[in-house]
């Protein structure tokens, strides 16, 4: 069976998850790459083609809205629909982290 795209399943990859987080405020597309690098101390880097393709797709599925152009540079912001998807993924990741913390603490205590 073929893989379901994250845009269909709503299960975000790490890259899409962080890109959406950076779009909570209106931002120029190319600046998101720099912001992600700063926020993660260079641990996560997004290439330009990945960034461009992801933004195009996010606009297409309606998770991101394009704001009026500032010269040649377009600004993007998360939409209500995108916010709902982001929140759902955040809650899921939070649960996983809570579970991981619990199990690792248990493991450390038993050692």
């Amino acid at each position: 069976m073929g893989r379901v795209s994250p845009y269909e399943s709503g299960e975000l990859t790490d890259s899409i998850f962080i890109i959406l987080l950076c779009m909570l405020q209106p931002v120029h597309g190319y600046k998101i790459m720099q912001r992600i690098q700063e926020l993660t101390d260079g641990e996560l880097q997004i290439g330009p083609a990945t960034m461009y393709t992801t933004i195009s797709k996010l606009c297409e599925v309606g998770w991101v809205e394009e704001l009026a152009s500032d010269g040649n540079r377009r600004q993007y912001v998360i939409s209500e629909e995108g916010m709902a998807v982001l929140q759902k993924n955040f809650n899921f990741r939070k649960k996983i982290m809570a579970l991981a913390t619990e199990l690792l603490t248990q493991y450390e205590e038993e050692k």
Partner: protein
Amino acid sequence: MGKYRLSNGLMVFPDKDIKMLEAMSRKGYHVDSINAFGLYHFSEGEPKDYIYAINYEQNLREDFLDYYQASGWTPIIVQDGIQIFRGVPGSIPIFTDKDSKLEMLCRYRNGYLKATIVTFLLLLLYTLSTRMINLGVWEVVIWACLWCVFVFPATCLYGLVRAVRQLKKG
């Protein structure tokens, strides 16, 4: 003095072209253009250890190049449907995840699939109609032209299907 080299088939074997462009740069010849027949032109300069990346975006937005320039990639050839960028060793790859590359390749593949089907149907219709209408010498000329129109999207489609398969496997 500049040099010319023929592409290995940019749509079918992009990796071969990238290797060739990088090898030429190491010899001091840097690509600056490609014509409609797939012939690259190289300008002479200092030998450099450049790296190259190829992308196939269509309907480019006006902020397209900002993303590449902000990542240290220099646009060399930018046309609708084909873009070649030059970087230095250690540059962040233009695609950093499989999903975005698959997304772009599948979108592009679907466009060529439609074009291949349409040109194939044209070819088929024409071949059938020549059984009823005699166009004389023009019959072969039109047939050859339609074949050329069919072969281009079909070849691109082959390359893209191959690239999608490789990416899904790898």
